[in-house]
């Protein structure tokens, strides 16, 4: 018994969870700060949250190239996890930057908001560094439960309530699939650690034709598909993205999605390697279906948040192309793409925050008529993000797509790349339409209500820099993504 305790202590290795630990502790501490702060005073919580994110980010970066194993192999903080952790941290940081003034405008400045984002991020980090199905599940649940609350945060707004509830019920439903799949995998292999499952399959190659194992693997993947909003598991996305507070929508579309991709890549590439032949077909079909459905429905959207929701579905489809490639370029491409997507999508949402009025009824195509003339800087920034989302050079959207599709072509999936490019062409229509409304229509409003919130402006500037930097000199970051990729 003594030995068991000793071993347990040795196996813990807090270094492996240090970044997420920092965020969890900060989250809990700030929860207390929030509850003891007078109502309406939230700015200090926001800044403390950002500070803790910066600390966590520094710790993560310092651990680069120094893989840490913790909790008896349940957690593995490697470059892969570090890269995705940084994406989540950046997403959380940008979301917090654009939140404070927004919450005040929407007349709901409640301090719990920020600790919840921190805890979501911590959960995402467990998910990306988990090498045990239970750890991954735990991370996913921490992430999801916090997000359920955040999605329905404005409890006095009906649409927001709807978003929270729908997300909660459908999320719980998908978690059922996930957990059932994990249980089946455990039933077959007798372990929940991904490397042990892989070893078991190595020892028993016929497992990959075992219906139980296959069903388990696919059900588990379904849970992740739900989180990354792959069709046909995407249907919650538009309703939830539209109803949720805009910074949370931005955050959801970047951080948690990246985390789900990370977990998906890890379990697929390690545990389910034996299923590669069939799985690539599944991924192929889902990738095409996802980007096509996302883009096609986006064509008819008038509400900008909803349009961006469909666009985010389409982008998940592009990223899935990297899964199909199933090689180093593909997985590095996904890492790179998720980073790029974080900047371009969150930047676009930050712009929406600035041009929205309280209640955000005006965030439609008509609502940006002539914006480019009345608010030229906002117009330029929005155009940059839209160009990036379209995938045009010299923005990062182009380089991101380029690496993803290059990976697919390298693996011989020429048609997939062609379909991806065709989809990008379709997507031009609805992105350009926003710009047409911004620049080619006479302004009907003077946009006097648009105030440039300083913190939100900072997040926009960061995003613009990110989009342009990754577009013009992607080399160094791509190098890091390659070091992190599988």
């Amino acid at each position, binding site marked *: *018994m*003594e030995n068991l*305790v000793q071993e*347990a*202590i040795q196996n813990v290795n807090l270094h492996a969870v240090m970044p997420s630990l920092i965020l969890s502790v900060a989250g*809990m501490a700030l*929860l*207390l700060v929030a*509850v*003891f702060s007078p109502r309406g005073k939230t700015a200090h919580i926001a800044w403390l949250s950002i500070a803790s994110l910066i600390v966590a980010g520094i710790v993560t970066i310092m651990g680069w190239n120094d893989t840490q194993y913790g909790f008896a192999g349940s957690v593995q903080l490697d470059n892969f996890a570090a890269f995705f952790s940084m994406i989540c941290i950046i997403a959380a940081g940008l979301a917090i930057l654009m939140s404070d003034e927004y919450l005040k405008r929407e007349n709901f400045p409640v301090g719990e908001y920020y600790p919840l984002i921190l805890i979501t991020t911590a959960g995402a980090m467990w998910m990306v560094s988990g090498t045990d199905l239970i750890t991954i599940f735990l991370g996913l649940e921490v992430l999801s439960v916090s997000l359920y609350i955040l999605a329905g945060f404005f409890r006095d707004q009906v649409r927001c309530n709807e978003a929270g509830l729908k997300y909660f019920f459908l999320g719980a439903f998908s978690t059922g699939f996930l957990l059932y799949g994990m249980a089946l995998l455990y039933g077959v292999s007798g372990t929940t650690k991904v490397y042990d499952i892989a070893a078991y399959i190595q020892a028993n190659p016929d497992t990959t034709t*075992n*219906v*139980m194992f296959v069903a388990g693997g696919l059900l588990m993947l379904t849970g992740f598909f739900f989180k990354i909003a792959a069709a046909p598991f995407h249907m919650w996305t538009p309703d939830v993205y539209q109803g949720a507070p805009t910074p949370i929508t931005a955050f959801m579309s970047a951080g948690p999605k990246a985390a789900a991709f990370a977990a998906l890549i890890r379990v697929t590439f390690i545990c389910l390697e034996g299923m590669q032949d069939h799985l690539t077909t599944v991924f192929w079909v889902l990738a095409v279906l996802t980007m096509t459905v996302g883009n096609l429905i986006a064509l008819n959207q008038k509400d900008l948040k909803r349009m961006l929701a469909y666009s985010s579905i389409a982008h998940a489809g592009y990223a899935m192309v990297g899964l199909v490639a199933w090689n180093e370029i593909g997985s590095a491409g996904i890492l790179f793409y998720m980073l790029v997507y974080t900047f371009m999508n969150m930047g676009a949402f930050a712009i929406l925050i600035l041009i929205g009025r309280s209640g955000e009824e005006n965030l439609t195509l008509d609502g940006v008529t002539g914006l480019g003339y009345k608010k030229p800087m906002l117009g330029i920034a929005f155009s940059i993000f839209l160009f990036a989302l379209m995938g045009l050079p010299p923005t990062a959207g182009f380089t991101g797509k380029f690496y993803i599709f290059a990976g697919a072509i390298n693996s011989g999936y020429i048609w997939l790349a062609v379909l991806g490019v065709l989809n990008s062409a379709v997507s031009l229509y609805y992105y350009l339409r926003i710009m047409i409304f911004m620049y080619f229509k006479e302004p009907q409003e003077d946009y006097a209500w648009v105030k440039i919130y300083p913190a939100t402006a900072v997040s926009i500037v960061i995003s613009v820099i990110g989009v342009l930097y990754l577009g013009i000199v992607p080399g160094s970051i791509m190098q890091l993504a390659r070091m992190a990729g599988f």
Partner: protein
Amino acid sequence: MLDLYLPIIVVIGIAFAFAIGSVVFSRLVGVKRYSELKMSPYECGVPPIGNANERFSVKFYLVAVAFIVFDVEVAFLYPWAIMFKQLGWYGAITMGIFIFVLVIGFIYDWKKGALEWE
């Protein structure tokens, strides 16, 4: 391996068949004679007043959620209590952290007024 589950499937099948079969059978052979008393929700006991789908105060839910959280906490305390001596300081510290986290939730609940009924 799947053949191990065959008996279970057989049992499930029998259960379904029995359940459906008895309902159908009683409907086929039973005599139907309705009266006002028979049509009321409860044939005996207090006569119903108002709709059953009444809305409950949200306070019930708050208390229920708080109860579950702290109830689960106690459930975790049992195994620790049994192994208390063997686990020693390590166990004590770990459990302390666990309880501390819950205490934070408790303080939050309290401060937010979730524990007050009025």
